């Protein structure tokens, strides 16, 4: 089995970013009230993660060349912040309809730990590191994030109509729902090969 396919299945199911790696929990809890907004956020995250993976991989080669790898975190977060600003400007100029649907979520992604997480993971954890595996890892992690976000949003829409004990309303019931989802996703660990 090619390594990239392993990364795709791993990123979406086995090592799901939200439910097994605990990255990007804030938007997972915050932006999962409606399926439409969840989808918008998810698409924005996939896009940004793909772009970030490519750019930070290149930058890391440069950092290694100059022997200043300890600056990794600072450089990566600045690049991500700048990249998101740039994407926002470009989308606003050339795809106004996409901008109106993604616009609100783009600035939020800067502090989404999933994006910085995938950038750091690409240069520390992957077995074969090249620009293609980084890109695949970024995209499939983003898809995994979107999948979890969408399932959560679907469940929360139904939860609105159910009777929940007063104390459990809001975050607690969402966390317990997430726990049950995570339990289901644990079963994918059997897929590891």
């Amino acid at each position, binding site marked *: 089995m090619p390594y990239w396919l392993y990364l795709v299945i791993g990123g979406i199911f086995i090592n799901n970013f939200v439910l097994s*790696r605990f990255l990007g929990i804030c938007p997972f809890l915050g932006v999962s009230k409606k399926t439409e907004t969840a989808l918008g956020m998810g698409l924005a995250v996939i896009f940004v993660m793909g772009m970030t993976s490519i750019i930070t991989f290149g930058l890391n080669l440069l950092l290694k060349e100059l022997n200043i790898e300890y600056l990794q975190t600072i450089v990566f977060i600045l690049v991500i912040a700048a990249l998101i600003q740039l994407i926002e400007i470009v989308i606003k100029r050339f795809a106004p309809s996409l901008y109106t649907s993604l616009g609100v979520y783009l600035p939020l992604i800067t502090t989404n730990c999933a994006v910085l997480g995938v950038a750091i993971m690409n240069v520390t954890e992957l077995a074969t590191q090249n620009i293609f595996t980084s890109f695949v890892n970024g995209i499939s992690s983003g898809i995994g994030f979107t999948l979890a976000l969408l399932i959560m949003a679907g469940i929360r829409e139904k939860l609105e109509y159910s009777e929940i004990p007063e104390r459990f309303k809001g975050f607690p019931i969402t966390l317990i729902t997430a726990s049950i989802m995570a339990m289901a996703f644990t079963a994918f660990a059997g897929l590891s090969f």
Partner: protein
Amino acid sequence: MSGKTEKLTFKDITSPLTNGIINNNATFRLVLGTCPTLAITTSASNGIGMGLSVLFVLVCANAIVSLLRNVIPRKVRIPAYILIIATFSTIVEMVVRAFLPDLYDKLGLFLPLIVVNCILLARVESFASLNRVIPSIMDGIGIGLGFTFSITLMGIFREFLGAGSFFGIPINPIITAELPMTFFILPAGGFMVYGLLMVVFNSVVDKIQKFLDNRRQVNSGAKSIKGRISLAETETQGGK
């Protein structure tokens, strides 16, 4: 910003501290910084390590942002804040790597990820950029201690149930290393413990708050008949 000439009162200094630990508890009240809360709380000592790292970064970032609050232009404040936070989180990362390699291995990815921990950006933006240096530092200490307390508490629960130990010392007679209750170490258990602890914490804090309010009313109200009437009213309301 307007308070340049005003003197700091004792309350200005202590209230951010107590607020940070209880009323604005980052984990259970504000629900910020959830990623490390869930990911690294598989043991209590991890919780303390992570909490103190965040405490350090938060105090330093709050102090610097508060000092520069009139210098940083409004439009570029977010990148500026992120840069300040990233500097301190890199310092923490390098120090932990050099002096506590075990902890560094356990926290792994989540140590550099302190940069994007929403607690930091939220406090810097909503408190330090509007307040003077000393209250900002106290707010950093308060929020940091509250975060350390709550994630250590979560770590204690998960470690006790999942591995049967307390700070690495095996104490649970039923659950041992040979027969672990793996659920609580798995991600699913993290979500579950977090949700339940949030309910318990908020109920207990609300109960204590209500008790204190009632007692305050007794103390101040006993002086006058009017006070006694209002006390009676609150008691009947409490009875509902």
